[in-house]
């Protein structure tokens, strides 16, 4: 390993689901202690912390964690970047190591969302007694539901429908089949929030949220945490052979925002920044989509998964529908996507997601994924996107040894 390589030394995720007895610090602690133990290190070895918790972004979650597990005086970066919060926390720890300010860093993300409903557009204030223009659009009343929609299932429905309009081949059933795949995959993942297989009929017949996304086609709100210990190649060389053997190489770590496009302030453009992030990641890793043995991408809605096949260049441009219909993204296909169950079934405790997907890929690369192991996996990619927007892509490789 080269001295300036970056490695995942230890990584852990909690079970996603309902954790009424555990608060945010408990869940974060479980993930962090798991990651430290997995890497064979302690808090005193850590030189920097990237901490993410979107719904409690101003709570100083990094320091709260230190006060439970070890106040060693190291810098903490509490980050918030919508659904890319976990990937951003990881990116911060990686950047600190790359900058030479630390040789070992910790990143964690934690969220409690069980029972949460719509996260955006979940409430609308009452109209006032006197119309008075407010805000940057001079609106005299709330506009959600009056000028388009602010709810995420609706925003991402439009994103998937737009792709279908541009390239053809989509339908309510096609999007539901993507969800059927992820719900099927999660039956093998004991850490998923939902592990029950769902038939196409069940998915299509469930409560419609925003056409064509029914409830099981939406990411599952749940509680959970994930944490990773990352280390420089130089430091890893000083650790035991067993630690070196289980370490997973971070071949690319990229974060992008959306560059200006004509309609991006009307309907979020999740495509350009994802395509940019993927392109930069493949270049950084010296790898291409054909090298990927598995992908964990941001299926916040079934309609989103489809467009990201294309954005991550897993298929040719415009070819996502054919790519999915070929069976490529099922766990026995050529490019298994979301074998964890994805956000729709594994669940989406927002800040945890961008590290939990790294855990999933790392676990396959280590050959430790049990009965859902993708045999012989050597390279994997993780992707998250948060609206606003931010996109995180990581490419991971199995240790050469």
């Amino acid at each position: 390993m080269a001295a300036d390589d970056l490695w995942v030394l230890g990584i852990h995720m909690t079970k996603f689901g309902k954790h009424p007895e555990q608060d945010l610090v408990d869940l974060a602690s479980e993930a962090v202690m798991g990651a430290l133990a997995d890497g064979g290190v302690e808090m005193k070895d850590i030189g920097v912390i990237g901490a993410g918790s979107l719904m409690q972004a101003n709570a100083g979650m990094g320091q709260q964690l230190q006060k439970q597990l070890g106040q060693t005086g190291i810098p903490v970066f509490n980050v918030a970047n919508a659904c890319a919060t976990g990937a951003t926390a990881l990116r911060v720890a990686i950047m600190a190591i790359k900058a030479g300010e630390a040789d070992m860093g910790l990143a964690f993300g934690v969220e409690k969302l069980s029972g949460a409903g719509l996260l955006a557009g979940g409430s609308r204030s009452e109209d006032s007694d006197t119309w008075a223009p407010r805000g940057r659009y001079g609106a005299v009343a709330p506009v959600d539901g009056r000028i388009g929609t602010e709810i995420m299932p609706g925003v991402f429905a439009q994103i998937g429908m737009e792709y279908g309009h541009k390239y053809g081949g989509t339908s309510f059933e096609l999007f539901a089949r993507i969800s059927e795949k992820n719900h099927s995959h999660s039956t093998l993942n004991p850490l998923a929030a939902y592990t029950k297989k769902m038939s196409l009929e069940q998915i299509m017949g469930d409560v419609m949220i925003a056409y064509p996304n029914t409830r099981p086609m939406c990411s599952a709100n749940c509680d959970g945490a994930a944490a990773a210990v990352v280390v420089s190649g130089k430091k890893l060389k000083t650790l035991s052979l067993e630690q070196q053997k289980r370490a997973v190489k971070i071949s690319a770590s990229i974060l992008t925002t959306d560059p200006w496009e004509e309609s991006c302030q009307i309907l979020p453009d999740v495509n350009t920044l994802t395509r940019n992030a993927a392109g930069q990641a493949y270049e950084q890793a010296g790898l291409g989509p054909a090298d990927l043995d598995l992908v964990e991408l941001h299926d916040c809605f079934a309609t989103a998964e489809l467009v990201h096949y294309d954005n991550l260049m897993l298929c040719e441009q415009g070819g996502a529908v054919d790519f999915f219909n070929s069976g490529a993204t099922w766990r026995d296909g050529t490019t298994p996507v979301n074998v964890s169950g994805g956000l729709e079934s594994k669940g989406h405790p927002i800040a945890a997601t961008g590290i939990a997907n790294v855990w999933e890929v790392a676990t396959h690369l280590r050959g430790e994924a049990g009965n859902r192991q993708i045999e012989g996996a050597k390279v994997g990619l993780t992707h998250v996107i948060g609206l606003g927007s931010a996109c995180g892509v990581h490419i991971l490789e199995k240790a050469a040894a």
Partner: protein
Amino acid sequence: MRYGKLGDMAEQIPLVDYLVLGDHPHLTAHECTNCAARFFDRRNACAHCGKTEFKTVDVATEGEVRTFTIVSFAAPGVPVPYVAALVDCDGTSVRANLINVEPDPDHVTMGMRVRLATEVIGTDEAGTEAVGFGFEPATT
């Protein structure tokens, strides 16, 4: 702010300041004088080129549906179902509801031609009507 007044009808105020009421309701945008990027909100600078000069331009009142969703589950107080869409008005993308159309996938289709329409969304204590906008099928 712009008010519309028609005869002895109630005084009206647009839901947003980029909606112009009157005999020919239409939307306006802030167009960057350097690169022609268009924005509907109050601007500090152009997100495309960074320049700070804008002129107000009228947006075409007809367009075609580039994408849509039918929202069936929304915040309390928001009537459902409704159709949320992105309408391409001669190259300017507009976010709006599709109105005066059945909110189902049999009646709302990709690429359908639509035109701007206004509707009263409510009346305040002073009797002023707030007027919103949407797009309706252009063929009806």
